[in-house]
């Protein structure tokens, strides 16, 4: 039969040393939880204030979230800085391997793959028009890529995808 401790008149398996140690660990755990909430509020664990990126390129202004969650849709927006008769957006193929493209607005005219780049051609768009891409992250960790409006230089995009 297992031994039962006695405390006063009580047969009880109490252990104040264990309880004290556990309370200390619990306090550390609470702080860790508060820290997690704080990081979440700041946008370091997902979309939010510190996660939001606004990158100005030559022909494009790109807005996206740096911190993403796996399998959770995110929006990448590219605003044209000039009128374009036949705008062509190029994206690194490696970048798109990390995402599933859920939708592109406005509807592209044509999509091709050339020299390791996705080329997405649109009908004429005027200055200020926004191309929206709804992407679903498919891999965790750092994801890097670039986005360009031909023939302008590319804008670098960096994400970190949480599992």
């Amino acid at each position, binding site marked *: 039969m297992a031994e039962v401790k006695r*405390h*006063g*008149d*009580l047969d*009880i*398996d*109490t*252990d104040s040393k*264990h*309880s*004290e140690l*556990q*309370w200390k*660990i*619990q306090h550390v*755990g*609470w702080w*860790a*939880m508060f820290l997690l909430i704080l990081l979440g509020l700041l946008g370091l664990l997902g979309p939010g204030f510190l996660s939001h990126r606004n990158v100005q390129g030559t022909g494009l202004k790109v807005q996206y979230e740096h911190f993403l969650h796996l*399998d959770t849709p995110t929006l990448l927006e590219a605003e044209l800085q000039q009128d374009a008769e036949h705008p062509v957006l190029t994206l690194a193929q490696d970048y798109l391997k990390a995402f599933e493209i859920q939708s592109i607005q406005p509807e592209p005219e044509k999509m091709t793959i050339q020299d390791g780049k996705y080329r997405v051609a649109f009908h004429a768009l005027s200055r200020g028009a926004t191309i929206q891409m709804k992407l679903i992250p498919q891999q965790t960790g750092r994801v890097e890529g670039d986005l360009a409006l031909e023939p302008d230089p590319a804008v670098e995009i960096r994400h970190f995808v949480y599992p």
Partner: protein
Amino acid sequence: MEPILHGAILYFSLMLIFRVAGKRSLAQTTTFDFVLLLIISETVDNYFMKQDYSYVGVLSLVVTLIGLDILLSKVKQKSPLLERWMDDVPVILIDQGKVLDAHLKKSRIDLSDILEAARTSQGIERLDQIKYAILERSGTISVVPKEQA
């Protein structure tokens, strides 16, 4: 394989969170705690199942959760140390009629909680009628009354 891995990861993550939160957090379930539990279950469900709502997916997940529970209960039987860390130990709140304030504070319990337990379980009217009050591993408070003279 995914439901099994997800099941195992979440089982241990939730166990850690609830142990850190302390036994008082959800043991005395109020109406709001109940709603909170439902929300937690719904949130966890989203992660658990992803897009796999197949019979085999659900079955492997449920079996993983229950299997881990059985396995850990067996391991706990063999290791008292592990049992302490997983299930905690009882905490004495009133010892021979003396209120242990430090234990009450650290366990996030006040006298009214003890008096409530004393009234409901023993029909005790006053604090000085309590000999022992113990915060049990389950989070409930048990009360031993003083013997009548």
